[in-house]
């Protein structure tokens, strides 16, 4: 699990921007008797962690990541070192946006950085790569571009199943409130 897992951010699909209000997530700290809300951190440490994970998952160079974040390569270097750049809040939101998408593509790519890089850099049929769309602050479009790189869009008229359900599995009511 990623060290930054647990931070969930609301992505506004209307303009593909990421809001700054974390969803209410709680973490059990001491068994069941103390519950504290997750603290949304914007510390240089968190930015450093986000930056390091992005670079590790993709094998991007600092220049690649700088292009995705639309900042200079020296800013990425500062982020990676954990020093506080001037445009702190702006960078935080952009990093979270990129991290949200890249984390998922990395999991789909079986955590293989080369494969992750390929999926993010390949230009989709729509004409843009996930990297380019992340630079344009369109995370949902970026996610779709990477999925299209993995599995080209359907040309057949009918939707094709990929992993058909097996019969015989015991099932649980999806609508039921968990007991």
């Amino acid at each position, binding site marked *: *699990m*990623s060290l930054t*897992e647990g931070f*969930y951010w*609301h*992505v506004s*699909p*209307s303009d593909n921007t990421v809001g700054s209000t974390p969803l209410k997530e709680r973490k059990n700290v001491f068994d069941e008797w103390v519950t504290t809300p997750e603290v949304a951190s914007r510390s240089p440490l968190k930015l450093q962690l986000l930056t390091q994970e992005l670079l590790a998952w993709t094998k991007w160079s600092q220049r690649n990541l700088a292009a995705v974040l639309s900042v200079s390569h020296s800013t990425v270097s500062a982020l990676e070192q954990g020093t506080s750049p001037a445009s702190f809040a702006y960078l935080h939101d952009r990093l979270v946006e990129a991290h*949200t*998408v890249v*984390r*998922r593509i990395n*999991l*789909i790519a*079986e955590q293989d950085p080369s494969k992750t890089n390929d999926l993010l850099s390949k230009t989709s049929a729509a004409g843009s790569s996930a990297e380019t769309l992340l630079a344009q602050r369109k*995370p*949902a*479009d970026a*996610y*779709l571009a990477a*999925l299209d790189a*993995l*599995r080209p869009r*359907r040309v057949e*008229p*009918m*939707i*094709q*199943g*990929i*992993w*058909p*359900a097996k019969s015989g*599995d*015991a*099932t*649980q*009511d*999806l*609508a*039921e*409130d*968990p007991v």
Partner: protein
Amino acid sequence: MSDLHTEGWRQGSIVVRKLTASYLKTLDGRIEEVSTSYSRWVVCTQDCDLRSSRIDSNVPLVELRPVLDADPPSDWGIRSRRFLLAEGAYVDADAPRCFVTPALLNMTSPERDSALDDARTRAFKTWLGLRYDRPAVPEHLADLAREIAKRCSGGRGQAISKDVHDVLMQFEEDTQPARVALFGVIEDETDPEAVRLWLADVATRVNTTLGVVASIDVGTRSQTSLELLETSYSADLSQLTWRSNRPV
């Protein structure tokens, strides 16, 4: 000849009349009948069937469920085993049911209680739908499926769900975390790209400790085969978008 609907009976009508529900059980290898009496009942039969039931019919067509009042639930419970009809009065999915003839039901018209209000009637219909036609997934994928359904239902999902007939899910279980393919089934006039983008946005909010969305496809109902329906699980957008968990 009049019918039950014309006579004012509706799904959700309350009957105040002592009636008995029975079921069979085994005791020491013998079959025994267990009967329980209740004094209040709610009509569960759909309005279209009430419309087609003549009031002199002696065929047991009308389903009643007992209205209970002991230890009522604290929330409305639209997705729960117990559903609150009104303050202090609820139905329990596990309580025995009773079938009566239209003639008997109509005989109880003088004891018919005031009907549920429109909102509660709609909620009751939804609850009954969930009881009879419950979307289900393999147990080990239930948390992931619920997460996806929740993300589909919240925020923008409530607006876009009008244009989306259903969201189907298939799972690749041999990976860690599990992978999910989402299929949006849309109306003919709906923009598929807008729905793909919406599902991608949903995908970015699914907790990755539970699973990751690895494929998104969207098509109209005519592009959705019976095979796909039979081999997919439904996120059941229409029912899960209904949100009313607390008494107001």
